[in-house]
């Protein structure tokens, strides 16, 4: 678990590893370079079109990055692919819509927030929904860990993975029972109007909102991990559980806090996703979760800055594929990236944990 502080040495290490690598990595680097050059040609030819797609890619990517952080946090500490994370994200968006429609817990203790109540009420409503969803998803994350993962801490890795898949299906069906199989609309609380004066490039208030929520969360998380006592404990546990526990760190509590953090991020991204796209559905956690997982793997799973970089990259790859390859191929492109990265560079772009058998390089 590393943060941006060492990014420079990482990029150097990345270059170094390319220099020392075999033919397969070299081919991959060449292909990636060709794709980037082709995109740059497009950018020069049609700058406005390229810029618009880039903005769309970045905002979509910001949401993916937030979800990806949840995967990477948990993987960093207990090396588990927390399959249920994507569905926790879906629950987060459903909590958000429930709060905003004023029916939370069946109590009509405030009126639905519809967008006609004025800016202040909107801001308050969005913040309140964010907080409630973050709290709910944080608790769900911790609860799942306690019930389903903790008893299996000494079991084979794949036993826990199967449990995680099971939890994912349980959460997905809770969402299904809760809101039904159809798409659930969110109220339009944030304007879709363009902020920029130019018509060629569109940057909406919604896009600003995504950035405004994501950046503080990222900064806060990075501060928490690098500078607080608890964050240091997390890093210690990630490195060596036994040694950490000998140093007086409560390993169980630290793992719980990691799941809490992952859940909080899932809740925040769930509400954000809903407000941004305006629609959520019970199986959104599966597709978005897979994209986010791809992002985490691309950046190097277990690596926080890697997840953020991966998230933005996946967002941009998605919007570029929509524009230049065709919408129907986009998801195939993204899953192909997942497979290619896992097969040829399992550590991801910035990764620091080996995925290859036996550990080590």
């Amino acid at each position, binding site marked *: 678990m590393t943060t941006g502080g060492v990014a420079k040495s990482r990029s150097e290490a990345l270059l170094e590893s390319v220099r020392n690598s075999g033919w397969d990595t070299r081919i991959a680097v060449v292909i990636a370079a060709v794709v980037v050059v082709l995109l740059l040609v497009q950018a020069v030819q049609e700058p406005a079109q390229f810029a618009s797609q880039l903005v769309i890619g970045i905002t979509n990517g910001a949401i993916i990055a937030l979800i990806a952080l949840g995967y990477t946090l948990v993987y960093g500490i207990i090396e588990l692919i927390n399959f249920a994370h994507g569905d926790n994200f879906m629950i987060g968006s459903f909590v958000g819509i429930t709060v905003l429609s004023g029916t939370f817990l069946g109590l009509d203790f405030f009126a639905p927030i519809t967008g006609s109540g004025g800016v202040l009420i909107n801001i308050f409503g969005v913040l309140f929904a964010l907080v409630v969803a973050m709290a709910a998803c944080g608790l769900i994350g911790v609860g799942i860990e306690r019930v389903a993962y903790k008893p299996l801490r000494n079991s084979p890795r794949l036993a826990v*993975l199967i449990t995680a898949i*099971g939890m994912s299906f349980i959460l997905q069906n809770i969402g299904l029972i809760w809101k039904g199989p159809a798409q659930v609309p969110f109220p339009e609380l944030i304007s879709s109007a363009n902020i920029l004066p130019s018509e060629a490039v569109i940057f909406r208030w919604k896009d600003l909102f995504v950035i405004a929520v994501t950046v503080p969360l990222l900064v806060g998380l990075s501060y928490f991990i690098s500078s607080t006592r608890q964050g240091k404990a997390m890093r210690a546990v990630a490195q060596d559980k036994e040694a950490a526990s000998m140093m007086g760190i409560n390993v169980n509590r630290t793992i719980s806090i990691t799941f809490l953090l992952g859940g909080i991020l899932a809740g925040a991204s769930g509400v954000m996703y809903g407000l941004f796209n305006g629609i959520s559905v019970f199986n959104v956690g599966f597709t978005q979760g897979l994209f986010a997982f791809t992002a985490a793997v691309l950046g190097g799973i277990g690596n926080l800055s890697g997840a953020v970089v991966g998230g933005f990259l996946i967002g941009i790859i998605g919007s570029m594929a929509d524009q230049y390859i065709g919408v129907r191929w986009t998801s195939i492109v993204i899953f192909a990236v997942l497979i290619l990265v896992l097969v040829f560079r399992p550590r991801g772009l910035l990764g620091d944990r080996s995925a290859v058998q036996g550990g080590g390089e």
Partner: protein
Amino acid sequence: MARYRRFLLPAVLILLAVLLPFIDAALGTDALFTAITIAIFVMLALGLNIVVGFAGLLDLGFVAFYALGAYVVGWFASTHFNGVSFSLGSTATSLSGEAPDGIHISFWILLLLAGVFSAVCGMIIGFPTLRLRGDYLAIVTLGFGEIIPRFFQNGDNLNGFNLTNGTIGIKAIDSPGFPFLPDSLDTWQRFSTLDLNPWYYTILAMVLVTIYVNVRLQNSRLGRAWISVREDETAAAAMGINPVTTKLWAYALGALFGGFAGAFYGAFIKNIFPDAFSFNISILILCMVVLGGMGNIYGVILGAIALQGINFYLLPQLSTVVHAIGDAVGSAALSDVDLARYNFFIFGVVLVLMMLLRPEGIIPNRQRQEELRDDDPGTGDAMGGGARA
């Protein structure tokens, strides 16, 4: 006498299975359609069991092979490629009496072809992934399992060539049959949708062959190699077992049976679409293997029957009970609920509970049981060994 006793129970079960259509007809239960569907899943579960149970490789994209098998039958036993006209031992006829459009090859040839094609694809997919650690391997297979249906979805225009007919899928697939039989056996000449007996006996024969192959595999040299690679790959390699070829065989054989099942499914349902091969199916098959007992052939069969039984009978029946309660209490929520809708909720619970309480499954494979209950941290990390801190 004693040495024949172990054959007694299987013989009774096989006899029961062979007589099922007659029992069904006598009782008027119309259960053959369900029995055929269950049998397809028994085959799939047995195929996945080779990969997950025997070799200890978690495969989350097994549905891909099922799809590949089905599409082989779709391509070569329908009017899909209508630019050509080719028939080989097929039951297809055209109304005008001329040779029908498209490629029509006998189902029995295609069945083999589908299995081989899936097996080859299994090896192609497996080869680059085998050096990965267990959970990464699972994700790569999941990725393939997602890509292949999506490829079929979009394959209706590959540079203008219509390979898969997109989301719409391939329709009106030929029925299997033995065209050379006399007319008195017309339901065997061309399997119809009204008489399910030929279908049932075909899949039953396929399942029995699969079971036989699995039993023989388990105690073969290859079967023991799988166990050793599963438990400790490094040690196995040191003993002269090539882990890569051993695992590839597992992939190929698992895919083979997946392809067989897919081919039969395609011909039976007569229509194939990418949507029928979603991730949920992969998980359903995995559930069957886990529930029954990874590595235990009889357990896996029981797991498949139990889960499909839950799907087809238990949940609808429970729903009617709940409706009755709802009507009695006057609760609209209860009287409208349809439990079959939430079957995957139950499968999720099954996965979690089995892993927490009885990871070795209902009928454990004794060796797997010890591996899964082993609390000592090991070094391997396949399904069995490799406990981790």
